């Protein structure tokens, strides 16, 4: 029996050690860093205590404010479009039997491709001079658009890429949920003389709510991490038009070598995101079906 206890701990230990050393310890490390200014001299870190000064800088940092705002705007708009489009397409295409494997391959492909490659693809397509999108506009007699260089359009252009990137996945999840609903419910509703939108509003939507919430939360989490596509498409520009929070942290911590300030920003971001996710989950579950 002794060896059983040993193995019980031995099997769980690697995961716990990994979590402690690489997630919990770094959080304390960030906390310590955030009260200091760090200078590197010959691979040696020189710490200088600055109290709350790093945190005090945050509210006045235009890049940080733009980063938080753009990230929230990006996440909310992109995910909203993906959910609605994915849901609508699933409603339109239920019970597709032909070419299933072909469709599934096509719709899974975008999420298995590196984000940086998604950025590269759209950088080419959005190009002012030779991109296919401006070429099509020219064919129809319009004027070319500076999709990524115009500060008023850049964030929208980036959101379009994300909608293209993730709508297929939302669609697959919505479709799977829709196909798992008992079909006789629709027939019963039909016999009762329910109108189409009534069936949608009072039958389909409530039944699909769990799948909708799961997809929504999953997408929101990923949307807040956005980095790769924007790194390649705009680099956060023009100006601060597409600056997102991961970008600001990267810039402050690594490009500008402000470890202390970057750490304060990291912790503030974690706090903001945690608060937002809790709020969103509360909201989503409150709006859920009354059971």
């Amino acid at each position, binding site marked *: 029996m002794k*060896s*059983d206890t040993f*193995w*019980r701990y031995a*099997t*769980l230990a*690697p*995961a716990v050690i990994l979590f402690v050393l*690489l*997630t919990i*310890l*770094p*959080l304390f*490390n*960030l906390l310590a*860093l955030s009260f200091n200014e*760090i200078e590197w001299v010959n*691979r040696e*870190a020189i710490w200088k205590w600055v109290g709350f000064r790093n945190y005090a800088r945050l509210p006045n940092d235009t890049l940080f404010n733009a980063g938080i705002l753009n990230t929230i705007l990006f996440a909310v708009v992109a995910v909203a479009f993906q959910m609605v489009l994915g849901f609508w*397409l699933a409603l339109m*295409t*239920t019970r*597709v039997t032909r070419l299933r*494997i072909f*469709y*599934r391959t096509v719709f*899974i*492909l975008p999420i*298995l491709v*590196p*984000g*940086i490659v998604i*950025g*590269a*693809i759209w*950088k*080419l397509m959005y*190009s002012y001079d*030779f991109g296919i999108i401006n070429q099509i506009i020219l064919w129809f007699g319009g004027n070319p658009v500076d999709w990524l260089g115009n500060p008023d359009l850049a964030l929208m252009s980036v959101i379009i890429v994300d909608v*293209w990137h993730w709508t*297929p996945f939302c*669609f697959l999840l919505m479709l*799977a949920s829709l196909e798992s609903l008992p079909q006789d419910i*629709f027939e019963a509703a039909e016999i009762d003389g329910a109108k189409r939108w009534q069936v949608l509003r009072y039958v389909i939507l409530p039944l699909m709510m769990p799948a909708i919430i799961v*997809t929504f939360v*999953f997408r929101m*989490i990923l949307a*807040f*991490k956005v*980095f790769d596509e924007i*790194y*390649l498409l705009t680099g956060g520009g023009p100006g601060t038009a597409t600056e997102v929070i*991961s970008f600001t*942290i*990267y810039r402050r*911590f*690594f490009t500008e070598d402000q470890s202390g300030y970057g750490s304060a920003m*990291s912790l503030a971001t*974690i706090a903001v995101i945690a608060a937002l*996710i809790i709020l969103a989950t509360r909201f989503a579950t409150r709006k859920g079906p009354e059971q």
Partner: protein
Amino acid sequence: MTDHGRAAPLARHAVLFGFALIVLFPFVWIVMASFKTQIALLMGQLSFSPTLFSYDAVINGKTSDFLTNFKNSSIIAISSTTIVLTVATLAAFSLYRLSWADWVLRILLAWSVIFHMVPPITLAGAWYTMFRSIGLDNTYAGIILAHTTINLPMALWMMGVFIKDVPKELVEAAQIDGAKTPRVLWDVVVPIVRPGLAATGILCFIFSWNEFPVALTLSQRATATVPLGIGKYAQENTIAFTEMAAASTLSIIPAFVLLIVAQRFIVRGLTSGAVK
């Protein structure tokens, strides 16, 4: 009214097919661009004679690190996947079959969810500082450790889903027969969860292969991965668009091959674990 007002089958098919074309078109476009000369691309020519020039430049070019990037990505993705599969399988087996108290399970799962929600770049700074002070910066080991940790939450709850499917009686019977825990795990559990291991492993491999921000912060030229190599093209003053397209096309190949040959595992992984 017979089809409760849904679109006719033909229209349904047209919508779906149109959607698939919109999703597929950008990929076709970038593969086409990779076979064009820079001039043909800039002129926007639709008909062109395909050339392997860009591939030659990416693979054999003096200033191109692409082969090194490919080697680095392979080493990092395969190592981190192997480690995370081992760690997650052991932990999931321990949590679900070795009678841990409920709070242990809850705390570990809750923490992995919280960590999964946080953008990795927020911890990358701390990883960089810690790794640098113990000489792990710009090494494979540092990036492998980071990727292992990033994938651990997903691997943990995916393997949890699969291990919960292993009948308790089977494990208990083996234990009563006097089998030690490693034997039970290797002879009873692993053969049953093999499809789950495949599903989890494929996703972990692809996510490590694709991961960008953390690799960007933890590596320099010698350990740079494929996404970093592609990202570098966009940083040049005059972007070599066709070479960027060729490098992008090459970088998709591993995921594409896996999607074709192991689709059922990927679908299973995405539906059973990644989302739930």
